[in-house]
């Protein structure tokens, strides 16, 4: 027997959201802001993807022939920065967080709607500024890590604009984080206990803690770096007595947690998607909560694994090996729980489900290479090679981006009231999955056999494998076509979805689709068991 709940009907006309123009206004509605984040992020994804395509075209041949060498460095710097700070972070945090969290806690909006809108509107200008810096005097070209002294000696205007826009984006992310913490802790509907929240709330709570604790350190570091560039101070400039390794510590103190900022929300999203389409409760709710918090704590003390070949003494290398490897334990718990959630379910095999399962497979692969990288003696050989590039694309693309797509398939009916076309969706999945693996799996071999990263030219013996990789990238680019067609067609004349097409139990489905301006016409429902699939209806209030 399927358990289902009738959504609240919104009859009051005045509460219906009106006009697509609201998406271009300084709106305070969390749902509007969420969509703004998503669309803005996706546009930057297309830009970042175009840059990635340029990288892959350059690497089709061993010579540096497609673009000048310094332009190549600018392209890869922009690619990394855009993908991380303007696509993944704003989308998994800002877009889905803003859209879903108020529903999940039973609120009508976020705790600080104005701050929320400001946080979003910081993003487009700083993103545009970053892209525009290319046309000034060349964009930043020291990689997304901006290690000094290289970042001090390369052309200044590009690097300064890079710093400025990362500072603004960091600020945006801190404002968002404060807002999420306050909303989840303080704005909960009366009667709703913490341990009854959908898992995404916990993921966002953990993520926001990381944002609040680590992003300011990046801001401080970049301010110091900009002093080095403009005011000729010597914090990180060895010529003036500075210490370049201190920058690396400070940078990774933020940027390692940043990888969990990119993936924890995805963990939350997948925990929402799997139970709905498998028609089973989320397995091991409590351990999931503890493992999120475990990842948060461990995530703060492992940063130096990015510096195993840098100026780090042996004891430090070893300590960070052990700490890093232990992150596999809480992460592993989550993966086993997800598989257990699937086990014995009644699984609908649709696009959302396929992307989520693709996520599990890809992430386990990327996680395992991560644990290998955490071993100092192993990392010493492959650090700064394509092995690392392969590792993190398996996680950021095969993990987070897969989940973003999965979430779009899952929540599209909620946002628009229309269904996406399943056939196109499955086609999208198949091309993406093949293209992705074709692109990044061979890069492991490249790294092991001697191809460093961030190079525009390489030894001829690597040409064939690089071409396979570029072919995969081409497939990935093609895969966006069915997706875009699908979205555009379905927004205009997709099948009507009704209010709750998946028969889901989490609160956002208990209102009409698209939801009214203040989420619920009456009082927000109290959902004590967001994952009560397979139970008697009477148990659910």
């Amino acid at each position, binding site marked *: 027997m399927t358990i289902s709940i009738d959504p609240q009907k919104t009859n009051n006309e005045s509460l219906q959201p009106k006009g697509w123009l609201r998406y271009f206004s300084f709106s305070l509605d969390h749902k509007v802001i969420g969509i703004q984040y998503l669309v803005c992020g996706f546009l930057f994804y297309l830009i970042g993807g175009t840059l990635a395509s340029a990288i892959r075209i350059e690497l089709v041949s061993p010579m540096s022939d497609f673009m000048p*060498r310094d332009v190549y460095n600018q392209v890869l710097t922009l690619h990394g920065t855009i993908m991380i700070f303007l696509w993944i972070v704003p989308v998994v945090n800002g877009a889905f967080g803003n859209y879903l969290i108020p529903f999940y806690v039973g609120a009508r909006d976020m705790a600080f709607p104005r701050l929320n809108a400001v946080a979003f509107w910081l993003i487009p200008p700083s993103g545009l500024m970053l892209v525009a810096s290319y046309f000034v005097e060349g964009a930043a070209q020291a990689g997304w890590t901006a290690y000094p002294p*290289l970042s001090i000696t390369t052309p200044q205007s590009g690097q300064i604009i890079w710093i400025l826009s990362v500072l603004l984006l960091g600020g945006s992310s801190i404002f968002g984080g404060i807002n999420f913490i306050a909303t989840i802790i303080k704005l909960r509907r009366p009667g709703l206990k913490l341990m009854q929240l959908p898992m995404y709330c916990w993921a966002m709570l953990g993520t926001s803690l990381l944002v609040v604790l680590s992003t300011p350190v990046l801001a401080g570091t970049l301010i110091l770096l900009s002093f080095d560039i403009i005011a000729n101070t010597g914090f990180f400039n060895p010529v003036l007595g500075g210490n*370049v390794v201190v920058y690396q510590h400070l940078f990774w103190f933020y940027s390692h947690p940043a990888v969990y900022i990119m993936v924890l929300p995805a963990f939350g999203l997948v925990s929402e998607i799997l139970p709905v389409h498998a028609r089973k409760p989320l397995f091991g709710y409590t351990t999931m909560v503890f493992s999120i918090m475990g990842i948060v704590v461990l995530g703060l003390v492992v940063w130096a694994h990015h510096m195993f070949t840098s100026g780090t003494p042996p004891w430090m290398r070893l300590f960070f090996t052990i700490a890093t490897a232990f992150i596999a334990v809480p992460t592993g718990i989550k993966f086993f729980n997800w598989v257990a959630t699937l086990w014995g379910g009644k699984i609908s095999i649709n696009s959302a489900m396929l992307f989520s399962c693709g996520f599990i497979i890809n992430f386990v692969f990327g996680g395992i290479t991560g644990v290998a990288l955490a071993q100092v003696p192993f990392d010493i050989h492959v650090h700064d090679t394509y092995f690392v590039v392969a590792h993190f694309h398996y996680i950021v693309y095969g993990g987070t981006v897969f989940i973003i797509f999965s979430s779009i398939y899952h929540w599209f009916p909620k946002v628009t009231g229309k269904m996406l076309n399943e056939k196109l969706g499955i086609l999208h999945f198949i091309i993406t999955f093949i293209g992705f693996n074709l692109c990044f799996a061979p890069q492991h071999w490249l790294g092991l056999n001697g191809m460093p990263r961030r190079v525009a030219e390489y030894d001829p013996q690597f040409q064939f494998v690089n071409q396979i990789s570029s072919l995969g990238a081409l497939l990935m680019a093609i895969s966006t076509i069915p997706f875009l067609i699908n979205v555009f067609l379905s927004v205009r004349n997709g099948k009507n979805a009704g209010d709750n097409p998946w028969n889901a139990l989490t609160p956002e489905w208990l209102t009409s689709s698209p939801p009214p301006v203040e989420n619920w016409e009456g009082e927000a429902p109290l959902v004590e068991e967001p994952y009560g699939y397979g139970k008697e209806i009477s148990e659910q209030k």
Partner: protein
Amino acid sequence: MLNKNFYLILIISLVFAISFWIGFNVNLLPAEASINAPIYDELFKILFIIGLIIFIGMTIAVIYSLFKFRKRNGQIGDGIALEGNLSLEIVWTIIPSIIVLLIGLYSYNIYDRMGGMKELNHNHEMMSSNTEKIWAGISQTSDNEIAINNLSIEVSAMQFAFLFNYPKGNFISGELHVPVDQKVSMKMESKDVIHAFWVPEFRIKQDIIPGQPTILNFTPTKVGKYPIICAELCGPYHGGMRASIIVEEESDYNEWFNKNKKSEVDL
């Protein structure tokens, strides 16, 4: 019931067998040319096998559930309302912890055998600069062999070249020549930005940092010419920043050395 367990055990042993087979038969690494390399490859093999077991196992579990528990046509209803299973969860907390701990201990052992835990000092006969602070690196000074025939080389890196200074012969070379089977000790420092010294066939890498000398010791085991690759982004020509290391028989090395040696040192 027995039937079910039988299949489970069969599948698990198959996963193990396949992983071991791949681990032992698929070689993903370049030639081994230093005493570090076989040690590294041993670690690689172990990690590769463990990784394969976990990955193949998880993949099979996901695909199997998708297939076995898929919603058949016309079927409606929910799955079982199973919310957790404490003993199962304890098992899959403890087993990964043990694996991770063992891997950690093992890689400590490997790192130690590579010389990573040895005290960092660069044995220099010409000048006694031992007081200088060495920041990082891999040292292989096994205690009894503070070698007499120890080769001390000073590496300086700059955009976009490596220079190798042989203080004993008082000359600088753009190619690194070393005799086979002898320990080489290098002190490296950069003149501008961060570079890195990487020889894939030796499985060693160490950043070359301005303002912070680092140490890299190694013992080549195979005659030949190998690439030295700069592995840290250092500017537009980072990709072209290459040099070669030439490992040769001791007699060949001595010939080369004597040819390049500056006479002033002979006094």
